[in-house]
């Protein structure tokens, strides 16, 4: 243990050296995280093993076999396709809708502030509970949305229980929950833009669509990029909404990465395949999150410079 600091000899009592102090302060947090790193490393090992909970005696290393099998496994390609489709659809819709709402609410006044607080409510709803709410609304027997569909002349619109519309349904729930997040980010972004370019454009009588494409959008790009990356990372890992709504069904229509891994682990008890799936998902999110964090830190520095 490092003993008393020597630069202040008049202080007699024990003092923690300046070099040890930061580690001491962050140590508990670090230990907690190491406790999380251990299961992570275990998962890496699992992914390299032939390991089924139902056949523990047959457990052995098969090295890359779980991964190699994926190449010829249609279920894996389905998982990849479903996950990417889900992430693409949700983030695209949320971005467009969120940008639109942020532009509508841009001006600071009491009504707009009230509406933006109200719109945060879906974001405060647990995604799993949001899925249940929509499940009640899309119930074929009494669901209000099923009733609206019949009013529009669509008979037997089965929402999440029909393979044709299951993806649409969960995407709507995701859009309902997460659009407010993008909205609030972009609203903060829009309101932080310097007013001078807009004043100059207004003085010169520049048309508003031109202002939007040439001034607003380019200045908003860092915010759009941050919001998009953040949502893609979360959306490709979506579990709560899909599991609470359909548990990956009907059939394999919605078996995204985490749902497929969960079902592999608990239903078919194929730990090896489950872990390998999650490792691939982790690799995807690791790359994305590194880009995200760098982008975010740059944005943060810039914000602080402006302040």
């Amino acid at each position, binding site marked *: 243990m490092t003993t008393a600091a020597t630069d202040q000899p008049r202080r007699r009592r024990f003092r923690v050296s300046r070099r040890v102090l930061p580690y001491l*302060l962050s140590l508990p947090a670090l230990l*907690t*995280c190491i406790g999380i790193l251990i299961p992570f490393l275990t998962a890496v090992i699992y992914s390299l093993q032939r390991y089924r909970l139902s056949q523990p005696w047959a457990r052995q290393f098969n090295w890359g076999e779980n991964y190699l099998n994926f190449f010829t496994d249609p279920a894996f390609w389905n998982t990849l396709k479903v996950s990417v489709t889900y992430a693409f659809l949700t983030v695209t819709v949320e971005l467009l809708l969120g940008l639109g709402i942020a532009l*509508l609410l841009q001006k600071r006044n009491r009504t707009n502030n009230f509406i933006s607080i109200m719109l945060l409510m879906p974001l405060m709803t647990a995604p799993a509970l949001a899925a*249940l709410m929509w499940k*009640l609304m899309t119930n074929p027997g009494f669901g209000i949305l099923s009733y609206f569909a019949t009013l529009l002349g669509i008979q037997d619109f089965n929402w999440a229980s029909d393979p044709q519309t299951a993806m649409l349904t969960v995407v709507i729930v995701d859009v309902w929950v997460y659009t407010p997040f993008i909205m609030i980010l972009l609203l903060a972004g829009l309101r932080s833009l310097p007013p001078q370019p807009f004043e100059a454009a207004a003085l010169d009588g520049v048309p508003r669509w031109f202002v939007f494409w040439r001034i607003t959008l380019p200045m908003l790009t860092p915010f759009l990029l941050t919001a998009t990356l953040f949502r893609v990372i979360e959306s490709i890992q979506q579990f709560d909404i899909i*599991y609470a709504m359909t548990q990956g069904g009907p059939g394999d229509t919605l078996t995204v990465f985490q749902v497929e891994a969960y079902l592999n682990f608990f239903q078919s008890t194929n730990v090896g395949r489950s872990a390998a799936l999650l490792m691939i998902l982790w690799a995807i999110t*690791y790359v994305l999150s590194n880009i995200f964090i760098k982008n975010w830190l740059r944005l*943060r520095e810039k914000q602080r410079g402006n302040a």
Partner: protein
Amino acid sequence: METTSPVERLLRGIAITLVCLFFMFPIVWIVLMSFQTNETILRVPPSVIFAPTLENYTALITGKLETAAGTLDIDFMGNLWNSLFLSTASVAVGLVLGVPAAYAFARLKFRGSEDIAFTLLSFRFAPPLLVLLPLTIYFQQLGLANTYGGLIWVYQLIVLPLILWIVRGYFEDIPADIEYAYRIAGHDFWSTFRRIALPLAGPGIAAAGLLSFIFAWNNFVFALVLASADKQPVTVGALAFVTASGIQYGQVAAGIVLSIAPTFALALYAQRYLVEGLSLGAVKG
């Protein structure tokens, strides 16, 4: 300054109305449903005119559900309590561990500090099941399976990175000179931290605490994998409840209302911190 034509104002009005309708309707509808009996819920066509009843709520609070097959015991209040306890305890632990660490990262640049902060943050983006599935096996061996302690520890996975990064941003925004002046006046490190740094970062700590409470409350997958019925929070409990209660839809709706009411109330009460935390947490740091 901008000239808006009546047509444009009308279009804006319609757009805002549609947006509010889409985002508010589900909440309003579920609240309405929670005050109805099965007969009025199952009416065709649906109607908003009904005699409101508190039956669903009393059934949930007393834990006795009347179903076609007889009385069913359900411990939904237990789920609510679990949610409250798990979220509060996780945030408390997260603050005790996270705030000093955030201070260390912000103020005392040390070897490897950036790398460590970076790694901690990237935990937030890793797939939770990757950690949870091996943990189910470890927890069995350690005797932590289905204990509050084990769950609170795992909840740090969401709570800690959030607190660390939001609070760190706040500490960095405080000019270090104030603290130096206090130190020169002869106070030691701990009292400087306690009397100067902590109060100044107060709003950031509040925002981080609030946001991580909501995240913890809304979490689903941790408890789904690691807790059995008696330790489950409302998010997991409500799902089990749907299958258990058969066709008592009003009670399911009432259960959902009770589970989302606390986060809504908290969000409305502390909206300033919330917006700040959300945009800081994701943009400003």
